[in-house]
């Protein structure tokens, strides 16, 4: 979790993470604002703002009087959004640090291939 981000964004990103890893499957209910607030020890208004952000982006939808549910297609949408951001968020910092240490792109690609092979065996 990125501590420098506003808490309501952190709430939203945590829920997105749980949708991506399958903890909250599509068309199932997510915990309520109050449950998130108690769990994260944050003001319920902040938790509500995080959830509403996901309603605004179509990831969650409200069922009146029942609660919030993961929308159909949410996982695909989130995956697409995160894939788009992947380059800026992960590759650019990786290249920066590599350049600082004198690791050229070819060496870097080799390192990634090596690690991927090891991770694949595990």
């Amino acid at each position: 979790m990125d501590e420098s981000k506003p808490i309501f964004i952190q709430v939203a990103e945590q829920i997105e993470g749980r949708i991506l890893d399958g903890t909250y499957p599509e068309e199932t209910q997510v915990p309520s604002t109050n449950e998130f607030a108690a769990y994260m020890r944050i003001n319920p208004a902040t938790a509500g703002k995080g959830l509403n952000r996901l309603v605004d982006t179509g990831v969650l939808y409200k069922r009146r009087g029942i609660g919030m549910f993961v929308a159909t297609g949410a996982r695909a949408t989130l995956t697409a959004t995160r894939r788009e951001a992947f380059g800026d968020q992960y590759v650019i910092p990786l290249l920066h640090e590599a350049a600082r240490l004198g690791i050229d792109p070819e060496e870097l690609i080799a390192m990634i291939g090596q690690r991927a092979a090891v991770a694949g065996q595990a």
Partner: protein
Amino acid sequence: MMNLAIETRSLTKKYGNTTVLDNLTLGIEKNTICGLLGRNGAGKTTLMSILAGQELKTSGQARVLGAEPFENAQVLAGLSFARENQKYPEEFKVSHVVRAAAWFYAGWDADLARRLVGEFRLPLKTPIKKLSRGQLSAVAIVVGLASRAPVTFFDEPYLGLDATARGIFYDLLLEDYMEHPRTILMSTHLIDEAANLLEHVVVLQDGRKVLDSSVEEATRSAFTLSGTATAVDTAVGGRQILRSQALGGLRSVTIAGNPDERLRTEAKAAGLEVGPVTLQELVAAFGLLESGESSLAAASSPPQTQHEAEEAIR
């Protein structure tokens, strides 16, 4: 406005020649948890005491639930003031405090009080005067929460409490607030711990208001800039520096206001890092301001609407 639980206008309190509250105007919305922050001597307890009808103001207005609190039984019936140094009758035990409080507060929840006494492991039969400071804080918290008063003040409710007991307090405060929304004003120096519980924050410095905003806006009303000293100095320009630290040729400064796009671009080009401030860092930086120096309220950009503020983050 009808939505305000607490409202002051030009509220001033003087002890002899000393001005403790200086022309203070503020409003706290109903059913929010609001932090009252600032250095020792900033006027936090005095403000709470006046709002709780326990002290007389010198001039100005103070209204709680729409009426002046002083000697106003109707207002005081809906108000609970929790503090560790609360005076109790001689010979009083914890059990007496709990029983007496039940008479006092219309919304008193005896079950909650019993549960809280258990959570804080308070000895019911021990005389109050034999309790430790942490236990006195726990008694104040029990009364403050179980009273379910529409307006509740907690004045440094954690004094003498260990980390476990403070965690219990924060959890129970949130839990009960969510079940029974009410207006809570809490002073604290443990800002990092409490910041996420708060919706709104008021910061006092020398009896004056230096910040009055949502927690989120507050942390966006300043930022840090760090890198080589020369590059930092160039980028700072005429901006107000709240705090500055140096290490060899490096410098890190806390600056009032929002980092605009131009500054971000310049900073990036110069290899500088732009970072956020925490609420605690911000309040600590305010404490360094000399009295009379301009406050952030004046230095920061004009207020945004909620929508614009959210857009800015995205």
